[in-house]
Structures are given as structure tokens and as C-alpha cells.
């Protein structure tokens, strides 16, 4: 083995001595105590706590995109579509968007029925904890549908098609003011105004809804619970038959198919599960931000989430979480710090308005300096540094690029 490989092994070895479960307990405890720690440290912690709650939503999305991009190796530039679909699901099932259902009395499932003035809320109101799962299933379904036409594509072509889907889905919602896909005449989205307000979260066993943005701790814990839930299942998937198949497909599609891996099913599961997490998080962010508005669902958002995955470390759950935290906090606070910079060189614009340009720059810098991300998965690191580690001449002649010659068929 080469010496380079030996050095990074020994450098990670010292961290490895702390058992994994101890790290897990430490970080979970830290996350649970976090709002109280902020209370102690700051006089007005609400702004940072608000940013942290948004971050929890982004973490879930980054973990979802990580399944598609990091595990299965399918570059998806339209992830925002699933955020949009998830957000609209709660827009439909948790607001007054459809005031005429049930003769104007509305449908209420485990949610507060009457307003403070004793009048029934019109519209559909389903408990948040039910809606998140409805949204996850619904977006998974759409993930598979949008994924299906891209199955034969690779690399750049795949990226372009997914990018298009990311543009199409918000436009469909924007224009769904009189029926959707030209069917019916119901208003599904209020066009550019968006749907607002969105129902607050309430636990199924009580009629008392959460009181954010005045009181942030309860919603923080709901978000944290969702993140832990997602991490838990993400890890299980990674270490399963399907997780191995994803990596195999990413490594060598032809060999994977020849080993009995059904490419269609494997890729569609990646799209579906990745999308489901986007929808899951979309519901959370929609109710937290109290609005579902097509302006939120821009291409830039897909890049934002993708940058979290890449900068954090593709394929590594912890790396992706780190990337999500770093970028979302930077987006919120770091950019403001830079606002004065253009002025000092005589330019007149806000740094915050070119934030996606800055993320693009980060991505480029990352590609050059550390393509595997801050906390890479060991596999990805090996893939990207294979040439450096691989000093044995044995492999010469094995990389003939013959993959292109096979017709890997997907029908």
C-alpha cells in the first residue's frame, strides 16, 4: 500500500478510538440541550434559534439529496421540485385553501376545529404528523415518476433533465390557479400570492397548536425529532441490500446489472426515497414559514442543497449534516458580514443578492481543493484519490472505458 493511504488512516485512527455510539449520544444530547444553551449564552437567542430550525429542515433535504447524489450517484439539479410538492401538500391539507369543502364547515382531523371566536375553520385541516407522511408518500410517488424518464441518462444529460423538472414543477403550481394540468377549475396555489397562513403544528392528543414564531422551542424539537428519524432510517438503508446496490450502481452500472441488480428498481428507489425526504422537509418548512409560495422554489435552492451535500461530503451522512449546518448558517449570517465589501472597492450591490454565485464559487473551490468534501465517506475519498493511492501497476489496462460499449438496457 502507498504511504499516502497509510497516513490518512493513522490520522483518522485517533478519532476512531472514541466509539461511534459515544459520539452519537454526545451530539444528540447537544442538539437537545441546544435551545437552553443558547438561552444561557445570548440575551436574544430567538434569531439564531430561528436559523437553526430552518437548518433542521435543510438537513433533512440534504440527507434526501444525499441518497440520490451521494449513494446512487445520480446528479439531481431539480431537487427543489420535491420541496415544492411537499410544501403544497400541507398547503392543501393544512390551510383554508379549499374553503368550500364539506359545505364550508371544513374537514378537521386531529386539529383544532374552531377559532377563538367559535367559528369552524373552513378548508381541509389534517394533523401535521399525518400530513408529513402523506407528503412523503406523495413526493416519493412523484420522485419515481420524474425519475423514470431519466433512467437511461448519465452525467450531464441527467443533470439537465432533472434541472428542467426543477423548473417545471414550480411553474405547474404557479399556474394551477384554475385547475391543475387544465383539469377542473379549483384554485390549487393562489398563483404568485401563495398559500398562507398554513396550520401550525399541534400534537394529535391536544387542540392546542404551537405558537411559533413567538415560541420556538417546541417546533425546534419537532424538527429535531424529524432529523433524528431521518438519520436513523438513512443509516439502515445505507447498510442494507438496497444501499449496497446503490453503491454498486454508482461504481459500475454494467457490472451491477450483470450481478443481478435491477437498475430500474434500484434507481427509482433512490429517487423516490430522496424525494420523500424533500417532501417531508417541505411540509416542515412550509408550516414553519407559514407560507407556501412558488417564489421559494427556485433553481438556486436546488444548488443550495446540492452544495451542502458536496461541501459536506457526498455519501457521508455526518458530512452532509455538517455541510447543511455550515451553509445555512453562512447563508443567514456570513453573507451579511460581507455586505460592505463591494462598497469598499466602489461597487454598488449587496453580497446577499449574489449568494448563489458565492455558493457556486464554494463549489468550484471545493472541487479543486478537496473534492470529497469536509467529511467524506471513505468510499468517495477513495474514488476521488484513487490515482494517488494506487501505485501498483496491476490496474493498468483495466480502465479501458469499455462501459460505453455496453448497451445497458433499462426497459
Amino acid at each position, binding site marked *: 500500500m502507498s504511504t499516502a493511504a497509510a497516513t490518512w488512516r493513522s490520522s483518522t485512527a485517533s478519532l476512531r478510538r472514541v466509539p461511534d455510539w459515544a459520539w452519537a449520544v454526545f451530539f444528540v444530547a447537544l442538539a437537545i440541550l441546544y435551545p437552553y444553551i443558547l438561552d444561557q449564552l445570548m440575551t436574544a437567542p430567538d434569531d439564531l434559534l430561528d436559523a437553526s430550525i430552518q437548518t433542521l429542515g435543510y438537513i433533512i433535504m440534504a440527507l434526501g439529496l444525499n441518497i440520490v447524489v451521494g449513494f446512487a450517484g445520480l446528479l439531481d439539479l431539480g431537487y427543489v421540485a420535491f420541496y415544492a410538492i411537499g410544501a403544497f401538500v400541507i398547503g392543501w391539507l393544512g390551510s383554508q385553501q379549499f374553503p368550500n369543502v364539506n359545505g364550508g364547515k371544513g374537514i378537521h382531523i386531529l386539529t383544532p376545529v374552531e377559532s377563538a371566536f367559535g367559528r369552524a375553520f373552513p378548508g381541509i385541516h389534517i394533523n401535521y404528523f399525518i400530513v408529513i407522511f402523506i407528503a412523503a408518500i406523495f413526493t416519493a410517488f412523484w420522485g419515481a415518476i420524474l425519475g423514470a424518464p431519466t433512467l437511461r441518462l448519465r452525467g450531464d444529460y441527467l443533470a439537465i433533465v432533472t434541472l428542467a423538472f426543477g423548473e417545471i414543477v414550480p411553474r405547474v403550481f404557479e399556474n394551477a390557479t384554475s385547475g391543475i394540468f387544465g383539469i377542473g377549475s379549483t384554485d390549487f396555489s393562489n398563483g404568485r400570492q401563495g398559500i398562507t397562513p398554513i396550520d401550525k403544528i399541534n400534537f394529535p392528543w391536544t387542540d392546542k397548536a404551537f405558537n411559533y414564531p413567538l415560541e420556538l422551542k417546541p417546533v425546534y424539537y419537532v424538527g429535531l425529532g424529524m432529523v433524528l428519524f431521518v438519520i436513523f432510517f438513512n443509516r439502515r438503508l445505507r447498510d442494507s*441490500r438496497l444501499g449496497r446496490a446503490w453503491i454498486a450502481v454508482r461504481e459500475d452500472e454494467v457490472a451491477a446489472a450483470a450481478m443481478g441488480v435491477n437498475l430500474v428498481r434500484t434507481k427509482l428507489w433512490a429517487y423516490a426515497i430522496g424525494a420523500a425526504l424533500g417532501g417531508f422537509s417541505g411540509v416542515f418548512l412550509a408550516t414553519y414559514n407559514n407560507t407556501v409560495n412558488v417564489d421559494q422554489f427556485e433553481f438556486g435552492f436546488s444548488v443550495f442543497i446540492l452544495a451542502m451535500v458536496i461541501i459536506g461530503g457526498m455519501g457521508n451522512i455526518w458530512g452532509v449534516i455538517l455541510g447543511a449546518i455550515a451553509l445555512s448558517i453562512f447563508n443567514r449570517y456570513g453573507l451579511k458580514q460581507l455586505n460592505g465589501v463591494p462598497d469598499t472597492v466602489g461597487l454598488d450591490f449587496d453580497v446577499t443578492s449574489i449568494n448563489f454565485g458565492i455558493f457556486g464559487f464554494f463549489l468550484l473551490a471545493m472541487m479543486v481543493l478537496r473534492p470529497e468534501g469536509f467529511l467524506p465517506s471513505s468510499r468517495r475519498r*477513495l474514488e476521488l484519490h*484513487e490515482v494517488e493511492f494506487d501505485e501498483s501497476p*496491476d490496474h493498468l489496462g483495466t480502465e479501458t472505458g469499455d462501459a460505453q460499449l455496453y*448497451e445497458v438496457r433499462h426497459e
Partner: protein
Amino acid sequence: MSEQPPPAAVPEAEQPHRADGTGVLDARGVSKVFGGLVAVSDVDFIVPEKGIVSLIGPNGAGKTTFFNCLTGLYKPTTGRVMFLGSDLTGKRPDIITTAGIARTFQNIKLFRTMTAIENVQVGMHSRLRSRVTGMLLRTPFNRREEKESYRRAREQLDFVGLRRHGELAMNLPYGDQRRLEIARALASEPKLLLLDEPTAGMNAQESEELRRLMERLRTERGMSVLLIEHDMKVVMNVSDHITVLDHGEKIAEGSPKEVRENPRVVEAYLGSQA
């Protein structure tokens, strides 16, 4: 397509497995055309049960193309591939693997950043029954199956004589990578194993080990083996039956002795003495 008579150079008597038509694999009239290039032309091929048969021919004769037609990486332009009585012509590779044909690749195609064990576990993919819900909930069935697949993967690695089970595939020496490819193929519990130049780059001792391995596959596991090979020593020692391709056409077949003495084979390999 099957109306065409077999090539004149191959008399009916030299096709011992044709008479009863009960090969494990029975490919008839397989052709593959790329644009104007006929890579494989109307090849009939039978692999008998527990047989070790070889496919030889000069470079570019269409051997690997024929392999790819059998394993679903290519769809044959014409012809039919029957395997254990079912028609696998043009089916998807994973369906063919599930049906019981496994293969290795001429250019090693391991999952390079997975460990040897994980590689073999991927090979088992078609034999594992876990569903996504089972994986998420980690049901007792799922847990048992994972454990069992891990154990069986180690068995396969022991069987092919690979000792470094936990090593990443890319870090294994060349000979071990070849072994790992075979172990991965065996993991799908095939009835027929297709080996594409397994001894390429191996030394004499390793080739001999491989030859013994093939014999064991036949005797211990009742498998048939179809071999593409350039090492004539291995081919002549191990094969019951040899088929020779040249320019995509079958020019000869028979026992090793017959093939060795066939003037057309000599001509294909050495050129005509015009």
C-alpha cells in the same frame, strides 16, 4: 434464422451435445450486428450439463460479444438463447443472472471501493429477499438474511482462496481481483458460469489453481462453465469441448484434440500459407 444450415466445416458428428438437445444453455443462430459490422454471425452453441466448454479464437473474433449476447448486455440481432428450457433471448442482464447465468469480465469490473465481502454480497443481490420496508424496520427476517449473506459471502471467498475478506477491492492484488470476480459471480448461485479470460495476467501457478477451481465447480457444485481463454494450455487441459470463432463465425468445434488438428483453426491463428 434457424433454417440456415450449420457451417460446412462442422460435420454433425462433431457436435456430441447436439443429438439430444439437452444442454444447460442452448443458443441457436445468434448474430450481433453493429451498424455494418457483423461481430457474431449465426453461431450455434450448446453447453452441456456439468460441462466445461471453451470458446477460443483470435483477437476480435467476437467471443466477448457473444458472451454479452448470452448475458443480456447486448441484445442479439437474431437468434435464440434458451437456458434450462426458458427463453432468455434479449432479456435484461439482471433477469438472466437471476435465471442462473453469472459471469466475470475480461477487464475486471469490481466495485472498487467496496470490500471483498460487500462485492460478494452484491453478487447475492438476486438471491436476497429483503424488501425496503424490511430494511427500514430491520425485521428479524431482514437481520437474519443479512447475517446469513455475510456468512455465505465469506464462504465464497474461502472457496476461491481469497484471504483478505475485509480489503477494498481496489487494494487487492491482480490475481485476487480475478478470484474476487469469480466469488462474486458464484454468489448468485449460478447453474452456468461464464468466465471471460480469467487467466489473463496470471502466472502459471495461478492458472493451474484456476483450472482446479473450475474442476471443483463442476464436481462439488454441479455447475457448467463456459470459458473464453487465450491460454491454450488451460483450454486444452480443462475443456470437454472447444468452439472456435473467427470473424464472428464458428469455424470449428470438437474435443481439444480435434480442434488442435483442425487446419482451419491453425489457419485462423497463424494465417494461411498462401
